[in-house]
């Protein structure tokens, strides 16, 4: 289909035959001041870890070390939980709901004021394109704090006919794909409901969470209300297993989510989980095709595909499949993979060498199985750093690993269908149930499909939209509970 693609590296030839050349447009890093060694934020102070151990955090765009982070051990976790308990039994709970709200509003405002710094730091630590951290992550972070700040003095309206109270100390463990945004999703509703928090960011992306600690300090919250500790799985496990934690909120893989669920069965801890997905993007033959192509592209390649709700399975109606795949190839050839700090970059760096190897392994296995593979030949990857081309597999069987397992990278699996029933059956044929997309110009078809899909978030004629007011979370093995909106607050209260 179309012309043979150019195999030279001059970045000028896509499948469509023409592509603009772009000069580099790197964002400045002047705003960012990274400490060489970072401490833990416990009880309102920056404290050294008890173990004296540190680990490196790197910039995935070039593999260079950014800073050293403290490895918090069991003792540090205990100090953080004790500080949170003390704040919960004292200063934070003694504030009026109105005053608690004021503090959360302050956090939102300081985030807006320091947005450039936060965006650049997020991109350096995570590898996501600056246009995404600048235009999506950080504005959403501020919006989340702003939204939940207003709930703090309106909790009487949260649950019809009942009063609510905070749960206590929440241990929160978050992933590396949207580092600061996930911190906001966790901290903002917890504080609004009157809880105190111990947050553990992911070990590869802790820098913006630590900067949030500074912002919380600037906002003047009572010491211990929010504690931020760095470390890897062992630190997270110590937090999950701490006897004085009342609630665990985890975002991450289904595999780790199940380990956490098992480790809390003998306790009274409350648990919410936002886990993996293998979300289907259904395109009917009566869809607005060019818009649908854009949506499928952003659905899977946004944030390098490191999105739990990524539209990683495309279900396209058989009658338009060839045309759609042709359009998709052409669009993919114009995606720019490269320096995340470059304002023109569409796809940045994969967050860590381990993740990159995992994605490459799954791709190699599927190619070895003889599944039809495509990646745009004209895409040029930088020499240094962890990068991969956007790709898809076509005519994938439902039983194939790439159709069942969450890849968490820029890899799409394409299947076809002939009837709405078949589309729905295939879409629901997964243990997950996080999200789904539907493209059709027919309203009744959109609604009937949306009703039949077993997923917590349905994007109809759009994809990957998020808002603090909109509940997010999955069915089945995609997790327990919702985050966002009024429903997200229910995870942080006891109903009396």
């Amino acid at each position, binding site marked *: 289909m179309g012309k043979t693609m150019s195999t030279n590296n001059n970045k000028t030839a896509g499948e469509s035959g023409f592509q603009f050349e772009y000069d580099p447009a790197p964002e400045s890093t002047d705003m960012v001041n990274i400490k060489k060694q970072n401490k833990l934020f416990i009880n309102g102070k920056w404290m050294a870890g008890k173990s004296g151990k540190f680990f490196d955090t790197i910039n995935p765009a070039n593999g260079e070390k950014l800073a050293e982070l403290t490895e918090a051990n069991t003792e540090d976790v205990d100090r953080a939980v004790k500080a949170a308990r003390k704040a919960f039994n004292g200063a934070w709970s003694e504030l009026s709901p109105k005053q608690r709200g004021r503090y959360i509003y302050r956090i939102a405002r300081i985030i807006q004021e320091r947005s450039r710094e936060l965006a650049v730091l997020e991109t350096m630590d995570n590898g996501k394109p600056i246009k995404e951290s600048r235009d999506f992550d950080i504005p959403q972070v501020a919006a989340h704090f702003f939204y939940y700040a207003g709930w703090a003095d309106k909790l009487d309206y949260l649950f019809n006919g009942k009063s609510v109270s905070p749960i206590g100390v929440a241990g929160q463990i978050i992933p590396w794909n949207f580092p600061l945004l996930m911190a906001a999703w966790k901290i903002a509703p917890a504080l609004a409901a009157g809880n105190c928090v111990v947050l553990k960011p992911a070990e590869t992306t802790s820098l913006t969470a630590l900067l949030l600690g500074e912002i919380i300090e600037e906002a003047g919250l009572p010491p211990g209300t929010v504690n931020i500790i760095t470390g890897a799985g062992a630190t997270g496990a110590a937090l999950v297993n701490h006897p004085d934690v009342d609630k665990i909120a985890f975002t991450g893989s*289904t595999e780790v989510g199940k380990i956490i669920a098992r480790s809390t069965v003998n306790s009274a801890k409350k648990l919410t989980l936002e886990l993996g997905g293998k979300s289907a993007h259904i395109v009917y033959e009566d869809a607005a095709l060019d818009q649908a192509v854009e949506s499928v592209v952003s659905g899977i390649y946004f944030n390098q595909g490191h999105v739990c709700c990524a539209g990683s399975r495309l279900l396209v109606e058989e009658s338009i499949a060839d045309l759609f795949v042709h359009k998709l190839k052409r669009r993919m050839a114009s995606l720019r993979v490269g320096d995340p700090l470059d304002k023109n970059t569409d796809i940045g760096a994969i967050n860590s060498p381990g993740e990159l190897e995992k994605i490459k392994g799954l791709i190699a296995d599927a190619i070895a199985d003889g599944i039809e593979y495509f990646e745009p030949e004209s895409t040029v990857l930088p020499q240094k750093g962890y990068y991969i081309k956007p790709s898809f597999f076509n005519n994938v069987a439902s039983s194939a690993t790439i159709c069942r397992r969450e890849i968490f990278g820029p890899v799409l699996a394409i299947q076809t269908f002939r009837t709405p029933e078949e589309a729905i059956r295939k879409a629901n044929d997964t*243990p997950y149930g996080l999200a789904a997309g539907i493209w059709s110009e027919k309203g009744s078809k*959109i609604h009937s499909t949306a009703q039949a899909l077993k997923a*917590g978030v*349905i994007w109809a004629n759009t994809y990957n939209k998020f*808002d603090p007011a909109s509940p997010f979370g999955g069915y089945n093995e995609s997790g327990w509970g919702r985050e966002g*909106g*009024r429903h997200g607050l229910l995870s942080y209260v006891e109903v009396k």
Partner: protein
Amino acid sequence: MAGLNGTNTHVAKTIKLYIGGAFPRTESGRSFPVYTAESKKLYAHLCRASRKDARNAVAAAKSAINGWSSRSAYNRGQILYRMAEMLEGKRSEFVDTFVETLGYSQDEADNAVDEGIDAFVYYAGFADKYQQVIGAVNPVSGPHHNFTTPEPVGVVAMLGSDKFHFGQLISRIASIVCSGNTLVLLLAEKGAAILAPLAEVFATSDLPGGVINLLTGFLDELYIHMASHMEVDSICCEFTEGEITAKVKEEAVHNLKRVVVTPRIEPGLQSVLDFVELKTVWHPVGF
């Protein structure tokens, strides 16, 4: 057969399981005796349901889910109300069973039936209201219509020890099916004699077969299999021991079943919320 200690001319009822709208005996051919509370005479041989019976019941519940959840909420409410009517009509049989097998006084038995009737009527009225109470239209930034609606979680398994409280048991059953879920309920040991009249309430209320399935037998023998079954979406422990509850939670992790464990609760919104998923739909607004 129930009431064997009656006179010779009394025709006693054979108590069987209730699966997929039919009344099969256990495929295992096993039974266990239940004795009257007072005289310790044989009351009936109840079916000792097997793992295969439990799997059959889950299969029946699974195949009923699409039909039941796509009934109109009004229709589900009417069917629940019909259950209240049927329970009222069988009051004396329920009272006799409570008195004979559980040793309730006449008043206690009458109160239990009253509470059961109240629960059916209460949730009959909730079937077409909880959506408005807990759903939402969300004010997102940007040109999108965004709304959140509750949906049934799917197939619910419920484990009831013989320490059950009838009003709460009916509350749970009614709150589970009012939102479109289907149910497999295991009633354990001597408490299970109540299954006979209860199954007849469901069988005569225009409830589609498979929506509610009732098993009698031993909790110890079956709970692990119900908690680990991959087609059960949620599991509810009613008055089970702490050790069993912890094991249920652990087995439930296989497919991340929603586990609902509550002490005594009053009928209310929370009981409906325990068995729904929230779905949020986005659609652009524009020309």
